[in-house]
């Protein structure tokens, strides 16, 4: 999946400025996207590299006022990357169903919670599943090498 396609999308909103959110924000910014990061704590913005000069907003990402301040009305991409699965799912649903944002991604640790994601078109990133598939690749490759 390509989040930041070559065509300049209107707005990219990233909720949650942890390692994942901050890194994603800076990648987007380096690719000349119009990036806005939201976090409930200002302290989280120190995760952003110094080269980042996009927007950052302190506020609760599940609050529609905060999302509107961040420009969700003309946003093309929203990534919900807070440390709380439930909040991420709520933010993603608000973005998809209430504001009709094109690409909505939710980072979810516990993949059993994704009941309605597929139906309404929220894309899910699950670190555990990704780690498993990466680990399997490594294990498979080493086995193959031994066999040779």
């Amino acid at each position: 999946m390509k989040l930041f396609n070559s065509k300049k999308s209107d707005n990219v909103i990233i909720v949650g400025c942890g390692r994942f959110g901050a890194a994603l924000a800076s990648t987007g910014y380096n690719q000349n996207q119009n990036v806005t990061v939201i976090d409930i704590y200002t302290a989280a913005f120190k995760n952003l590299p110094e080269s980042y000069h996009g927007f950052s907003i302190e506020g609760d990402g599940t609050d529609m006022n905060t999302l509107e301040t961040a420009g969700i009305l003309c946003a093309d991409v929203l990534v919900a990357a807070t440390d709380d699965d439930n909040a991420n799912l709520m933010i993603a649903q608000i973005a998809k169903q209430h504001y009709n944002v094109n690409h909505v991604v939710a980072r979810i640790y516990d993949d059993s919670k994704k009941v309605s994601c597929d139906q309404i078109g929220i894309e899910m990133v699950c670190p555990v599943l990704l780690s498993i598939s990466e680990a399997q690749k490594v294990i498979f490759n080493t086995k193959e090498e031994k066999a040779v």
Partner: protein
Amino acid sequence: MKILLVGGHQETRFLARSLKLKNYDVTVVNEDKAWCIMLADEYEVNAVCGDGTSPSILQNARTDQMDLVVALDHKDASNLLTCEISKKKFHVPKTIAVVTDLKNVPLFRELGVDRCISATNYLIEMIEQETITDRISRYLQIENGKVVIFEVEITEQSKVINQKLWNIGLPPQSIISCIIRGEQTIIPEKNTELKVNDKAIVLSVSGVMDKAMNVLTGDKVHQMHLSTTGTFTFL
């Protein structure tokens, strides 16, 4: 009827007790193990310890057999997810979410929760009713506050005394539906006149409530208190 109470603390306890007294089949899901044990011992409810937003925990609580799920957690996001999983995965016919942020009430309905209860909303309603009781004895909201019925006492200061109803200039979308004069109740016609000490029962949309009241009482003191009523129209 089988009811599942998810999350919450003291409120779950009192809710469980009163539901149990009315012979409902009550199950609670709570993360606090000691609290689960207490509820199970004290009120003989079924208790499941765990995260109420996790499908496997809800499965253990036999959510699929429930008639009603009530999500009482203090986080709105958790309550949304609990209701959603109950509805979509376990096909529970009715879900109720307790909501802290008033803005989430219309949002949760849009996202498929059957009913939202907002303690903040009730508090605001009560405060408003208190604030305006000096002139209106009672008022009642209909259709989530889009329409209101209220009672105005016609005092001597009022400028509408002895005037015919068609002449007093009530704003559009408001009518006097009934006049109480002592023991008498009058369903007014356009030639009915208002007298001192009449109680007028007014039916109006919430937006013109303060205007209608100003016409009847003859002052504008109350405009400020009532302007907040407008916020209810979207609920």
